[in-house]
């Protein structure tokens, strides 16, 4: 299912699309670039693709590129090429957003516009569009989107920031210089090193990973550089170090900040000379290793403090460092990320057994599995089981702070899928037996064990029950005041503050939680102002 924005001066495409391809979600039609920009802004990255007409019969002043005093011929040309102008504007703001131009490539050439070099722009195969060819085209775009959204265990999503990280890593993987990955725990640094950098490095050698946080300080040097018998107490034989083992391949050093000063010095020497000596051995061995290091520490600060060598820091190629965002900053991709995590969870052999039992108990034929997260429930497809994260469960995940980032997220989703399936295996099914729904209560239970769980929520037995009726629990301290109105306002201020923190200051998400419509963000913001809540001060609480 794709989320499609239609930009067209008429209703006809929208009407036909809704009728002929009801499996997709449609926005619009919007009539002008101004409306399109607003719609894309409101959608906050949720639009999968745009259907864009070319010829727009709209009032002069709504035309993109309109200048007062333009003659009839200029206006005619503006109307005839309006879609192409809109496309250029969309491209400048959303470079990766796929756009299907509702015309053939030949007709665009007629307007002397060269769009061949514009990525993610698609044309109709034929001069005139029909449902079948458009459906095929949309499916093709969806396949491409899925292909670039995730690669094996890595989920890139659609945000520009993550696309840029991907491009940068692709380039860095090929070069000789080290790659530094900065990012909080669980953001996928090890995954990227193993499944992205190493395979793209063009190196035939092994991928060796060393977590420096788990090694005793006194053993780090021997583990990295190797040792000979008797080099240190307890060294009973010769030992090949990680550098030698990774020769011709990639060495990933996690938590590089844990290196002792002595080990830092030795690492610097290896990086400078390209040669390594085992502890206790005078012989040098040349090594050719692609080095990837990771940390969640501020190494620059450590250099200033004197606990990390400045020369080693400079050798690690900090100018090209890659900073991975925490999960809470990837909210635009959340539904897709849930889908990705569900698919990963469902591909495990253990899950296959449970799924087979479920199918047999509830007489669901076939072997296909679909996943979906979000407000709509897709229609049933014979032979498939649908794993569904309904909107209320998605909201709970969105509101969580995810201190463990992707690692915690993947485990939560896997547990959710597993328990949802497990609960339903023996339960009598009254609704659609092809749907396995991850209920909000289950999600809330799972999240309550996280270090990021809101302690106030945990203390709210009764309020939790209330959430089953569609609410969101919050504990407020009722304090005396001179009037009832002041007491109520105080409670409301506390409530809005908690909501602000929970959504990390996202007014659209607050509007969505409160009014069921994220477009009412301004209303929420106005209420903040009425209550005297200062967003600048609240922002400080988020730091």
């Amino acid at each position, binding site marked *: 299912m794709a989320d499609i924005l239609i930009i067209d001066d008429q209703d*006809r495409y929208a009407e*036909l699309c809704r009728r002929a391809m009801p499996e997709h979600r449609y926005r619009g039609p919007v009539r002008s670039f101004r409306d399109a920009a607003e719609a894309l802004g409101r959608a906050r990255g949720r639009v999968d693709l745009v259907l864009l007409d070319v010829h727009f019969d709209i009032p002069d002043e709504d035309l993109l590129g309109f200048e007062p005093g333009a003659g009839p011929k200029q206006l005619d040309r503006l109307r005839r090429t309006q879609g192409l102008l809109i496309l250029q504007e969309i491209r400048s703001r959303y470079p990766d957003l796929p756009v299907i131009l509702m015309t053939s490539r*030949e007709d665009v050439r*007629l307007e002397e516009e060269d769009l061949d070099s514009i990525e993610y722009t698609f044309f109709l195969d034929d*001069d*005139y569009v*029909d449902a079948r060819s458009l459906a095929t085209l949309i499916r093709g775009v969806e396949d491409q989107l899925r292909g670039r959204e995730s690669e094996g265990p890595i989920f890139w999503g659609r945000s520009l920031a993550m696309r840029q990280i991907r491009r940068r890593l692709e380039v860095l993987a090929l070069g000789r210089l080290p790659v530094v990955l900065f990012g909080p725990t669980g953001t996928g640094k090890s995954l990227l090193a193993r499944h992205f950098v190493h395979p793209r490095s063009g190196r035939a050698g092994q991928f060796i990973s060393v977590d420096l946080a788990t090694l005793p300080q006194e053993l780090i040097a021997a583990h990295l550089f190797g040792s000979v018998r008797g080099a240190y107490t307890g060294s009973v034989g010769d030992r090949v170090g990680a550098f030698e083992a990774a020769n011709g391949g990639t060495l990933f050093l996690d938590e590089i900040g844990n290196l002792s000063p002595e080990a830092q010095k030795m690492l610097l020497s290896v990086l400078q000379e390209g040669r390594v000596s085992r502890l206790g051995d005078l012989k040098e061995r040349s090594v050719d290793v692609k080095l990837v290091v990771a940390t969640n520490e501020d190494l620059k600060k450590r250099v200033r403090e004197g606990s990390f060598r400045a020369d080693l820091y400079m050798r690690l190629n900090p100018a090209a460092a890659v900073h991975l965002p925490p999960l809470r900053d990837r909210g635009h991709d959340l539904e897709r990320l849930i889908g990705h995590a569900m698919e990963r969870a469902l591909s495990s052999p253990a899950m296959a057994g449970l799924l087979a039992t479920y199918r047999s108990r509830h007489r669901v034929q076939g072997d296909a599995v679909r996943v979906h997260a979000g407000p709509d429930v897709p229609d049933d497809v014979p032979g498939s089981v649908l794993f569904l994260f309904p909107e209320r469960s998605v909201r709970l995940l969105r509101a969580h702070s995810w201190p463990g980032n992707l690692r915690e997220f993947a485990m939560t989703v896997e547990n959710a899928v597993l328990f949802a399936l497990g609960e339903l295996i023996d339960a009598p099914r009254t609704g659609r037996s092809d749907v396995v729904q991850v209920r909000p209560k289950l999600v809330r239970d799972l999240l309550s064990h996280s270090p990021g769980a809101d302690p106030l929520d945990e203390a709210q037995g009764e309020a939790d029950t209330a959430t089953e009726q569609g609410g969101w629990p919050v504990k407020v301290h009722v304090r005396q005041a001179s009037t009832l109105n002041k007491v109520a306002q105080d409670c409301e201020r506390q409530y809005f503050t908690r909501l602000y923190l929970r959504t990390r200051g996202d007014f659209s998400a607050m509007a969505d939680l409160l009014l069921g419509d994220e477009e009412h963000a301004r209303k929420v913001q106005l209420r903040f102002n009425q209550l005297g809540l200062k967003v600048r001060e609240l922002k400080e609480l988020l730091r």
Partner: protein
Amino acid sequence: MIRDHAARIKHDLGKYVAFQARWLPDDPADDELREALVADLLSTRRGPDGSMDALQVWDAFRAPLVGDEPLEEVSVDLSEHRAFVELDQSMTALRVHVEALRAGEDIDLGLARAQALCVAQACTAFLNTFRELS
């Protein structure tokens, strides 16, 4: 420019003369096809000032091509130009279906659909002639 004129014909007539009918399956239900043809042939061009049927759209485009005041750029006798003649003839063949639909009469819906698609193809061919010449 005659090429621009031909491009407008393709957009305003060729695109919309079979717009809904083209989206239907090969063997649609009669009421569905009739509804699509009524929309395509009787409201071919829709704008803020109302709608025009396919014949009115074609008449408006045809006049500057072969009427008393042809486009300045027309230097060939279009009345004998193959692409123009085919388009004109396809519109003549469509006329009977448009008038019957307007009168609410029973018509051969499959034939009307095929003729509308034929007009669309003729519009493309007409534009292609001038695209190649330019």
